[in-house]
């Protein structure tokens, strides 16, 4: 069990908005909050929304696996998929969310142009996410991953809408 600095991730909205940085997360039960994260490159953004408990959560993780960096994972579990995703769920549970009611979305995991498989930074992030969700029976409601574009991801807690901005265009990711 990690000793996590969860207090860091309990953020208050400023002008209705909670900005989630790189290697960062936020959970809220503020019914008017907007959670937003910018510049998802190879990183992945995960959103959780529970309409019954009115809980929203967002994670922006950078790397898939913390195995080689236990100190970094202890200092900031949101940096890694394998520590950040479970923590995001637990923090949403702590606010009253339940697995049955959760709407989970994901975006990001882009690759650099013409990556011949040498790095696959984005792909490894996508893989850890699928593995975690599959092993824990989590269904993803909607996702927009891969490609080479940068993405902005936002979760509007009042109605649970998840939106993506990429290449100058916005689109509603959930509900589809």
């Amino acid at each position, binding site marked *: 069990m990690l000793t996590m600095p969860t207090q860091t991730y309990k953020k208050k909205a400023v002008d209705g908005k909670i900005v989630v940085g790189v290697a960062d997360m936020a959970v809220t039960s503020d019914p008017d909050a907007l959670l937003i994260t910018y*510049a998802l*490159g190879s990183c992945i953004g995960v959103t959780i929304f529970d309409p019954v408990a009115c809980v929203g959560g967002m994670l922006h993780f*950078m*790397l898939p696996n913390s195995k080689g960096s236990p100190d970094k994972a202890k200092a900031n579990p949101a*940096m890694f998929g394998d520590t950040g995703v479970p923590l995001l769920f637990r923090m949403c549970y702590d606010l009253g969310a339940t697995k049955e009611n959760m709407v989970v979305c994901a975006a990001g995991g882009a690759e650099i142009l013409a990556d011949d498989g040498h790095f696959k930074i984005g792909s490894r992030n996508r893989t850890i996410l699928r593995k975690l969700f599959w092993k824990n029976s989590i269904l993803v409601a909607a996702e927009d991953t891969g490609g080479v574009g940068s993405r902005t991801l936002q979760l509007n807690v009042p109605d649970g809408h998840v939106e993506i901005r990429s290449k100058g265009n916005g689109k509603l990711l959930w509900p589809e």
Partner: protein
Amino acid sequence: MAGINNIISTFDRLPALPGAVNRVVSMLSSGEYDMGELESVISTDEALTSAVLRIGNSAAYGTPGKTFALKQSLVRLGSATLMKLVLEQEMTQVFEVAGAGYGLRRHAMWRGSVGGAVVAEKIASDSKFTDPNLCFVCALLRDIGKLAIDAYLCGDNAPQADPDEDYLNQERSAFGFDHAEVGRLLAQNWNLPDRIADAIGFHHTPPAPDDQTHDVLFDIVHAADVVCLWSGMGIGCDGLNYRVAEHVKQAYLPHRKVAEEYMAFAWTRISEIEDDSQQTRGAIA
């Protein structure tokens, strides 16, 4: 389509390097100066003086119980560290609000520039091939071409990335030039040394080792840029639409694990710098 001369004409709309900074960089890069002369130029710039005194008396350079004056601090720092300090100090303010035409929010260009700088410095230290301070400076300045294109766009946006094409090609199609090329010209316009201007010009396309223009410095700046792209530092409408040079991949990013370690390092250092900056800002209530 605009030509390169059109963009050069926008340089005078950019925040120029202050006279003191320009003179200091020019003196440091030529190596022709004496400490008294350097001290008198730096002392005309309050922010610069305070930065030199702060670093010169910091734990890394200071001696317990002693306080060093400006001239002593300059001697202790050395020219390479001083060049890094001067440009970092100056460009921080410029980058903070730059890049809107590329879809960058406030502070995003700063993160990309400083993130690249700390990674380049780290790669240079790890590889022991070239001066880490010089790598820091070149990576810090690598995207200054975007500042000029931003000014040229006058509130319009740079092209949205086509996922199948290198973004430099897309810039050339849209403008007739790309931000690396413009960055090199701007660096020359600022009288920065040729090697720094070339590192900026080649930061996406470093020449291969069998090319006469090959330079390890350019390779390291390129590798640092790639690490920033993955980390989402300073990426805007251009996304990750750039290629990794094969020889740089082999030399500096041979394994995914190495790349991931540099990504984690970038995030950690940037967070430390941001925390430090916040503490400095809040030091006097």
